[in-house]
């Protein structure tokens, strides 16, 4: 299914869950925060939350900041 991930088009395979997306992109789950269509999705729900066509996904990590 077609998604926009961090502003870029992405074709998601697998079972279409958030977990699947993270695995595909090789993100470290414990270091990642995630938002779908502007709503934060807690990590406990990633395994069970299905993504839908055209979802906007933001995957975020901590970096240096003041």
């Amino acid at each position, binding site marked *: 299914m077609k998604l926009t991930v*961090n*502003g870029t088009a992405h074709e998601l395979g697998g079972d279409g869950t958030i977990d699947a997306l993270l695995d595909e*992109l*090789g*993100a*470290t789950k*414990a*270091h*990642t*925060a*995630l*938002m779908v269509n*502007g709503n*934060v999705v*807690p*990590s406990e729900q990633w395994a069970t939350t299905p993504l839908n066509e055209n979802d906007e996904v*933001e*995957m*975020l*990590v*901590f*970096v*240096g*900041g*003041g």
Partner: protein
Amino acid sequence: MNEVYTMNEDVLKIGDQKLGSRLFLGTGKFSSTQAMIDAVKASGTELVTVALRRFNRAQAEDDLYGPLSQLKNVRLMPNTSGAMNAKEAIRAALLGRELSKSPFVKLEIHPNPHHLLPDPIETYEAAIELVKQGFLVLPYIPADPVLAKRLEDVGCAAVMPLGAAIGTGKGLSTAEMIKIIVRDANIPVVVDAGLRAPSEAACAMEMGCDAVLVNSAIAAADNPSAMGAAFKAGVEAGRMAYQAGLMPTSEVAVASSPLTSFLATQTD
């Protein structure tokens, strides 16, 4: 050592949280993660800010989650940098909490990249919501005494007025307003942004501020680790001086030595 002993007893409370150091550190702008970690250690800070950025597999080394989680006795305060308005700031705060599991949030909303100065209207609106959602909200604000008081009234855990624009190193350019904020505040006042030198951090503490947040001054120093130690000493010096009670100033000179005239002899 006398002053270290003093410091140990002088705990800073923000909401229900206790901190042993009155120096907060930003983690941006360091030449390397190791340089940042070394500076954090040398500074003795117990609270560091972090920002959120889109995951990028190619820049995995920028991910600070791992390195920071290994630091003992250091808590995280995610910031909301990048937020242009209240709605975006609230989103950033929620994301930051997901990752940090920390109650602290540095609320910063600065729409203009040229000066990065905070928006009082959006910040006020976001603060109200984030307090409702259980955060310990530390807003980065202009040195505006009425705004600071209103943010206290809506439940912020502290206020963080700026000394000067982020990264300019212009120090306590807003000192007169910060003094008024300190005089009226019932919550901690933290000077954030603009400090360049430990003497400025010491001065903020002498004015009665409860802590300072420093990033550029340490990250951009020739030797960040040594500068972290310097700021640690500066903050402690200023805090001790505030507690010790500074002498008043005087318009006329006051001798510190006797001015007896035994030196002139009748034969001169």
